């Protein structure tokens, strides 16, 4: 009976190690403070009605960005813990907190680097990009909403459920997967990883992956079907183009992740033998499949950033982007090539010289479209009137660092060199270079660039530039030592090493870099706080603070919830630039041009549905069968109820649109 009710859940699963107790206390205290604050300010209803149940892509976008920021803090804390362990654990110095070396035992250290990788990839970078794409792509194509507003809300809430799930082990279970961010078998099989850590990992990825997939389908349908009149594909802004490429990659690659991790779970739950070392299982099959998703995933994280940089460079150079068509072709080229390189993650598998050569060459070839983009950005800047704003600074930082990291990548693409550097810190340094410079800097540039569109005021430039320099210097100080350590033979995921290696000074240097990066991140928080305080000085009254060239800048800032009072029409690239040339002035549209607008209603169904999915997954992790059945059944029931609901829209009458539009522009005067 007890097993029926609670499955494998016992008292020992509750927090009792210092880190689970600490994290659980922090989580509970944080939620209590938040709940208290909301109750005190009487904001529950407002939160529920205005935000949580919203189907407005702009609000969902902001919620994505808030959630991703929280997770960035969480993942950053993991990074700092990894560094502290490595800086402390040379030689035979006695450990702390019961650890033999440093202050973390090997098992705990493994869980931290696993969580760091997964959180940064799935919940930080993906979260930020889904947020920015939600905010900006509909505006850039002149659409008021996405093709499927309910699905958008559902995608977001599944992402949240996945993010909560990956942190659940603190509260119940006490351990996370310790098998690296991709949980390669046979290590991740039941025999070598008993307990619930891997199951938490699998289901967190299932839930959030489903959310990403729904988002991907939604954005591809939106971009291909809902563009403003006259906006042909080759007139789309480049951020929309790269978002399209990225979302196509999501659609094509995330199913592979879903099914591959499910097969791993089937091994663990049903005792199957896909990837086991016995009964004919084949662990390398998993490695192949997971990287067939994993490499495109890298580009899912990087391609949208290319689009952001294209917008930023063009705007702040005061010129049209150089080589628009080649930019589009390069993005599409990278999209296609990203499916042909997965084997370079494990040249050491022993597939033979011919196979290795093919994948090595394909990997090198990816440098070509990427270089096309870099050259086009430089050509755009050439003889432009460059304004060195924070987004532009992030671009310049990116261009230098990314090119350097790309060179390291081309080096790694040579199978012979890769055999030496495989699994070393050189590799770790390489991919952090790429992700920090492209994805993170792109996100920071994008947030700074579009901040006034969403909030109505610009961010403080002075503090922003300071944060930029901290990030750049911090990047160099923390990752250049890792390149060197990799060459010296330090492998990744190292929890201690002999003092005689002489590596400790380099590890300590890297740690100082982490501190500088942390200072950069705190400066960014400071920047937001100061900017909110000084918001009256930095008001964006025209809706177009930078002299932008795409449709989002034709709306008043902050963007009203109906986005466009009058549906825009387009007949060229850089549509808004053209409109301004023809004498467009900020202000309400001409009377008589307003029409009724069909708007999506808010719905709480996505929250209930994600809640049931969460419970179902929790039941599966702990083998509580009734809970699993109830959770999945509840989710299906929600889905059916939703399909009966035809009252999902309302009409905003033309007169009301006109009134709101006048008010929005009036307020800014």
């Amino acid at each position, binding site marked *: 009976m007890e097993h029926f009710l609670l499955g494998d859940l016992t008292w020992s699963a509750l927090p009792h190690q210092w880190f689970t107790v600490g994290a659980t206390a922090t989580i509970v205290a944080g939620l209590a403070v938040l709940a208290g604050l909301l109750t005190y300010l009487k904001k529950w209803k407002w939160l529920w009605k205005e935000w949580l149940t919203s189907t407005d892509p702009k609000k969902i976008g902001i919620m994505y960005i808030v959630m991703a920021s929280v997770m960035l803090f969480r993942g950053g804390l993991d990074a700092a813990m990894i560094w502290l362990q490595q800086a402390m654990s040379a030689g035979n110095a006695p450990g702390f907190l019961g650890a033999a070396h440093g202050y973390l035992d090997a098992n705990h250290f493994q869980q931290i680097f696993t969580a760091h990788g997964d959180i940064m990839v799935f919940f930080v970078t993906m979260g930020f990009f889904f947020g920015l794409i939600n905010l900006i792509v509909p505006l850039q194509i002149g659409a008021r909403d996405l093709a499927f507003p309910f699905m958008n809300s559902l995608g977001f809430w599944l992402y949240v459920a996945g993010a909560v799930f990956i942190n659940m082990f603190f509260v119940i279970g006490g351990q996370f997967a310790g098998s690296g961010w991709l949980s390669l078998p046979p290590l991740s099989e039941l025999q070598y990883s008993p307990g619930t850590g891997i199951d938490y990992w699998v289901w967190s990825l299932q839930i959030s992956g489903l959310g990403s997939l729904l988002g991907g389908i939604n954005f591809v349908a939106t971009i291909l079907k809902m563009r403003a009149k006259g906006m042909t594909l080759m007139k789309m802004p480049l951020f929309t183009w790269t978002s399209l490429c990225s979302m196509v990659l999501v659609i094509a690659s995330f199913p592979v992740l879903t099914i591959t991790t499910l097969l791993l779970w089937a091994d663990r739950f049903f005792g199957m033998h896909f990837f086991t070392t016995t009964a004919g*299982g084949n662990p390398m099959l998993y490695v192949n499949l997971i990287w067939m998703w994993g490499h495109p995933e890298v580009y899912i994280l990087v391609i949208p950033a290319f689009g952001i940089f294209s917008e930023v460079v063009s705007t702040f150079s005061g010129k049209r982007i150089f080589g628009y068509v080649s930019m589009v072709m390069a993005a599409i080229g990278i999209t296609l090539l990203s499916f042909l390189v997965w084997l370079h993650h494990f040249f050491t598998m022993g597939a033979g010289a011919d196979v290795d050569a093919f994948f090595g060459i394909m990997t090198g070839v990816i440098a070509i479209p990427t270089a096309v983009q870099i050259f086009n950005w430089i050509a755009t800047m050439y003889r432009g009137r460059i304004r060195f704003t924070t987004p532009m600074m992030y671009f310049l930082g990116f261009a230098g660092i990314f090119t350097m990291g790309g060179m390291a990548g081309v080096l790694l693409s040579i199978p012979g060199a890769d055999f030496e550097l495989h699994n070393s810190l050189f590799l770790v340094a390489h991919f952090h270079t790429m992700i920090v410079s492209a994805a993170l800097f792109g996100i920071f540039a994008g947030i700074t660039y579009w901040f006034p569109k969403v909030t109505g005021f610009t961010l403080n430039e002075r503090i922003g530039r300071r944060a930029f320099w901290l990030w750049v210097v911090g990047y160099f100080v923390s990752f250049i030592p890792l390149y060197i350590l990799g060459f010296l033979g330090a492998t990744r995921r190292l929890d201690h090493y002999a003092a005689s290696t002489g590596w400790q000074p380099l590890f300590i240097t890297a740690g100082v870099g982490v501190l500088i990066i942390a200072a950069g991140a705190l400066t960014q928080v400071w920047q937001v706080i100061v900017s909110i305080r000084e918001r009256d000085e930095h008001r964006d009254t025209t809706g177009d603070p930078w002299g932008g060239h795409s449709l989002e800048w034709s709306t008043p800032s902050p963007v009203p919830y109906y986005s466009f009072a009058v549906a825009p029409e387009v007949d060229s690239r850089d549509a808004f630039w053209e409109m301004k040339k023809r004498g467009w002035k900020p202000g309400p549209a001409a009377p008589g041009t307003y029409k009724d607008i069909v708007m999506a209603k808010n719905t709480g169904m996505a929250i209930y549905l994600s809640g049931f999915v969460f419970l179902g997954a929790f039941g599966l992790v702990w083998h509580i069968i009734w809970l699993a059945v109830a959770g999945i059944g509840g989710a299906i029931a929600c889905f059916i109820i939703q399909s009966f609901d035809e009252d999902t829209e309302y009409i905003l009458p033309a007169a009301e649109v006109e009134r709101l539009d006048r008010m929005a522009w009036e307020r800014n005067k």
Partner: protein
Amino acid sequence: MDNEQTITPMTEAEERTDTQVFGFWLYLMTDLIIFGVLFAVYFVLRGATFGGPASYDLFSLRSALAETIVLLTSSFTCGLALVAAQRGKANQTIGWLAATFALGAAFLALELTELSRFVATGASPERSAFLSAFFTLVGTHGLHIGVGLLWIAVAIVQVRLRGLTAGTRSKLTRFALFWHFLDIVWIFIFSTVYLYGII
């Protein structure tokens, strides 16, 4: 210019159906990739019987053929349901949907009988990598059929309650795509798993 005059613009409802069907196609493509991976896994692990039964020891063409005929017929009745829906005949639509449901349920019953026969003879998914891959591939298809059955039931209720509106018709179109898609996947299972497995 001439083109624009000859094409009548879509109504709002048509445009919405068009977007919904397009989105559904995208979903089907993601599902196709899931099946693609399962097929690939099956072919890699096909020979990994680990001393247990192999495909030619287990598969019976007779039951596989019966399943195939039942499922293909259900695709036909599903097509008829859609034709009836386009002609605006609600009762006929419901009738053909019910027939599709019955055939789909029959398929599922046949499949479950076959799989439980395998398990009874000791050929369960835990036995070998080959059997894990086989059960998962066929089981995933069966699970989709189960979801399809649930969908038919909901669709019948909705057509009954609301008649053939633009909304229900769009749903039926998407259901038909789903059902035919599962048929195509089954044809691949029949030919590459069962037929090839007996050789």
